[in-house]
C-alpha cells in the first residue's frame, strides 16, 4: 500500500492505494467521485477523461500513485460552486449533446481540453479531436454542434439558438 495525496477539484485529498490501483478507481471508489466513468478496458472510449495538471488524461490508463502530488480536475469540478453550468456544459444541454449521459463527463472534459488548446476549432478539428471519445447514443452531430457553439461563446461571439 502506498500513501498518496493530490488536489482534486481544488480540495486536498489523500488515501492508501495498492500499486495497481488506477486513478479512475481512486476517484470512484476511494473518493466517491462517480462522475468519471469506465466504459472499456483498453483505453479507447474516453468515458474516464479527467484533467491532470491541466491536461486531459484517460484516468483508466494512469496509476493513482502516478498522480501523487498532482492537481486533478473531474467533471464534478466543472460547474460553478453555486451549480451554474460552465459554458461547455450549458452548450451540451442547449444542443442536446447527450442522451444516456454515460460518455458525457469524458466528452465535456475532452471538449474543455480541446478549447484550451484551440479556441476556434473547425468542425473537422472537433471531430478529429474526439477520436478518443466514443458516444453510442448521439451520433455525434449534437456533440460537435455543442462544442462549436461553446467555442463561439467563449470567444465572445453571439451564437444562434436552436
Amino acid at each position: 500500500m502506498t500513501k498518496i495525496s493530490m488536489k482534486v477539484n481544488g480540495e486536498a485529498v489523500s488515501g492508501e492505494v495498492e500499486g495497481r490501483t488506477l486513478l479512475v478507481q481512486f476517484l470512484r471508489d476511494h473518493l466517491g467521485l462517480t462522475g468519471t466513468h469506465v466504459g472499456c478496458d483498453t483505453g479507447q472510449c474516453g468515458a474516464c477523461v479527467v484533467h491532470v495538471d491541466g491536461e486531459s488524461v484517460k484516468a483508466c490508463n494512469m496509476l493513482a500513485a502516478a498522480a501523487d502530488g498532482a492537481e486533478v480536475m473531474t467533471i464534478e469540478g466543472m460547474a460553478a460552486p453555486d451549480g451554474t453550468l460552465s459554458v461547455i456544459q450549458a452548450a451540451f444541454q442547449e444542443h442536446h449533446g447527450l442522451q444516456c449521459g454515460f460518455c458525457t463527463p469524458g466528452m465535456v472534459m475532452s471538449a474543455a481540453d480541446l478549447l484550451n488548446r484551440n479556441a476556434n476549432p473547425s468542425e473537422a478539428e472537433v471531430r478529429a479531436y474526439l477520436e478518443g471519445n466514443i458516444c453510442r447514443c448521439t451520433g455525434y452531430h449534437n456533440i460537435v454542434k455543442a462544442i462549436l457553439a461553446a467555442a463561439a461563446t467563449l470567444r465572445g461571439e453571439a451564437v444562434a439558438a436552436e
Partner: protein
Amino acid sequence: MPKDSGIGASIKRREDVRFLTGAGNYTDDINVAGQTYAYFLRSTVAHGKIVSVDTAAASKMPGVLRIFTGADFEAVGGLPCGWQITSRNGEVMKEPRHPILASGKVRHVGDPIAAVVAKSLAEARDAAEAIGVEIEELPAVVDMRAAISGAAPAVHDEAPDNLCYDWGFVEENREAVDAAIKSAHHVTTLELTNNRLVANPMEPRVAIGDFNRASGDSTLYTTSQNPHVIRLLMGAFVLGIPEHKLRVIAPDVGGGFGTKIFHYAEEAFCTFAAKALNKPVKWTADRSEAFITDAHGRDHVTKIELALDKDGKFLAIRTATLANMGAYLSTFAPSVPTWLHGTLMAGTYTTPLIYCNVKAVFTNTVPVDAYRGAGRPEATFQLERVIDKAAREMGIDPVEIRRRNFIPADAFPYQTPVAVAYDTGDYHATMDKLVEIADFAGFEARRAESAKRGKLRGLGLSSYIEACGIAPSNLVGQLGARAGLYESATVRVNAAGGIVVMTGSHSHGQGHETTFPQVIAEMFGCPEANVEIVHGDTGRGPMGMGTYGSRSIAVGGAAMVRAAEKIIAKAKRIASHLMEAAVEDVEFANGVFSVAGTDKKVDFGSVALAAYVPHNYPLESIEPGLEETAFYDPSNFTYPAGAYAAEVEVDPETGAVTLLAFSAADDFGNVINPMIVTGQVHGGIAQGIGQALLESAVYDANGQLLTGSYMDYAMPRADDLPMYAVDHSCQTPCTHNPLGVKGCGEAGAIGSPPALVNAVLDALNAGGIGVEHIDMPLSPSRVWAAIQSAK
C-alpha cells in the same frame, strides 16, 4: 412561433443537469454497505466438456467467501425464453436449458464456469486464476450453413441438427408465391448477409444483489431497460422468489439499444449469492466481458427473390433466411427473425404475395437477440437491396420503382399479406421530402465534380417501415409471446397540486423525465416543473413492461394519458361540487375548472387540496384522494415509416468509402419533443452507418471472437460521420393511441444500412464497374476486392 411548453415543444432536458455535472446515478455508482464482489471465470473455448472444476486451493485464497459452480444452480431454473415459435411441421421450437453457471458443457467463449465472491474485486480475480478447470475441448460450430449440414457437432443434444425451428410465413401463401415467381416477367435474386453486431451501450452491465435476512426481501440493482420484466422472469422462473419479496431497481441506465432488455445470468447469480452469503454481491462487467456475454444482434443469411411485371410492379417475394441464435436462446431471440421480421416484408409496398422461411440455428457463439430495430432492419435491408438491384436490371430509376409500388395514401387502413394492418402512412410524402432535403436535383452536378477529382460519387436510398409500440397482448400472444405487452402508469396528484407519474416505461437515454411531463403539462395546463417522473423501480410503481421496440411514448405515454384522463374526470366531479354546478356543465382548460356561461371557476390546485382535505366534499359519492392508475393495451402496432438517402464518394484506387451526406425524412405521427426525436434519429442513423461501413462481430472457425474490444470492433467515431439532415414534418398520426404518436427510437438504424450500400453500388455501377452486391461492412478491402473482381 415554436411552443415553449407542452406537446410539440423542444424543451431542454431536465436529466441533463445531473449527467453534465457527474451527479448521474448509474448502477456501478451504487455501493451497498458491506458489499462483496463477484468475478466470473469464463470459458476460453467455444465448445467443451467440463471434466472437472477444482476450487479447493482458490477457496483458501485471501478474501474469498465462496466459489460457486454449476452444481450450485442445478436446483434452480435456467434463464427463461419469452417467446415460443412453432415450426412448419407443427413442432414447437427446441428450447434447451440455459443454466446460470455452465454444467456439463461449455457452449461459447464467455460461458461462465465458476464465480468467485470475495471481499474485494482484486481478491476475487486472483482467486479465479487459481481455480483448476479441466475441459475436454470439442469441435465447435460457428457457421450457420455448416451447423445445419448434418455433419456438424451438436451444440445441444436436444437439437442434434442444431435447428431451433423452421418457420414458414405465411404458409398458406407458399404455393401461390412459388407460382407467381415461376411465371413472372422478371425475377431478381439476391443473397446477402446481415452482419453480426454488438450493441455496445457505453455503460457495461452491472448487477448488485442484496438480501435482508430480517425481512426476507431481495433487492437487485441492475442495468436494465425493464426492471419489472426482470423481476417477473428471475423471480418466477429462475430463483422462485415471490414478487412481493423481490425488488428490482434500474437507476440511470447508460444506453441499452436492446441488449439490456434481456435477463442475464449475472443478475440471477448476484441475487442468489447475496442470499446464500447474507452479504451484498456486486458484479461489474469489463468491456471485454461485455463483448462475450451481452447478447449480440442481427446475424442473418438470406436469399430473397422479387418477382416483377414488365412495368416494375412487385408481384411476389420469397425469402429464405438462416438466423443465428448463438449457443442459447436469449429472452426475445426467437421472435426477432420471425414476428419482428416476416411481418415487415411488405415494407411500404403493395406486393400481394409474400412467403418467408426462417431457420433458426444454434452455434457455439454468444446468444443473439434484439438490437435496435430487431428483425425490422434485416427485413428492410434485404427488401431495399433487392429493389435497387431490380431497378438496375430493369432500367428503372430507383425512386420511380418505389413510387410505382408504394401503398397509396388513400389506401389506409391497409391490410398487408403478412398479418399486420397499417393504420396510417403517406410514403410519397416522405419520399418527396427526402428528394428535397437530399437535393436529388443537384446530384448529377456533384457527381461530375467528384469525377473530376477521380472519385466515384453515388446516391442511394431506402424506404422503410417498422412495427413499433410493441403491444397488442392478444396478438403477440397468438404469435408466441409468453407475456402481455401492455404498459402501466399511476398519476398521483398531491394535496398541494404537485404531480408524480409512476410509469412502467424506463429511460436509458431517451429523456422520459422531460417528455412525459410535457404531456401532463398539456393536459393539466400546468408547468412541466410541477410534474415528476418515477421509473426504473419495481418498488415504486405498477407492474410495467419496459422500454424497447420504440414503445415508450406510444404505449407508456398512452397509459399515462389514460390515467390522467381518469384524474380529470374525478376532478371535474369534485369541482362540480365546489362550484355547485352539474358535472356535465363543468369545463376544464388551462388548469382551471369553470361552468359554461357563468363566471364560476376553481383552479386545479384547489380541487387537489379539496380531495385531500375533504371538509367541503361529497364523501357519500366520491372517495377522497386524487390518484389513478391505468393499464393500456393498444389494439395494433404503430407504423412509423420514411425514406432515407446516403451520398458517398468511393475512391476506385483504394476502395475507401467517404460518407458525404445523410438525409432522413420520417413520419413518426405526432411528436412530443422535436429536439429529442431528432436526437433519436441521429443516434439510430449512426448505428446504421456503423453496421454498413464499420462494425462486424467476427468469429474464427474455432469460435474465438476476433473483435472482442474497441481495438478490433470498429465503433463509429466522430470523424467517421457527417452532420445529418433530418426531417419529421410529414406526420400521419396514429389512429389508435390517444397521442397519435408512432415511436422514433429505432427508425434511424432500420432505414440507413440499405441506403448506404445502395449508394456505394450506385457509385460503382455509374462509374462503369459492374458490382451487384457487397456484404456489410463495406470496408475498403471489401470494396476494393469487388472492384478488382469486376474488372
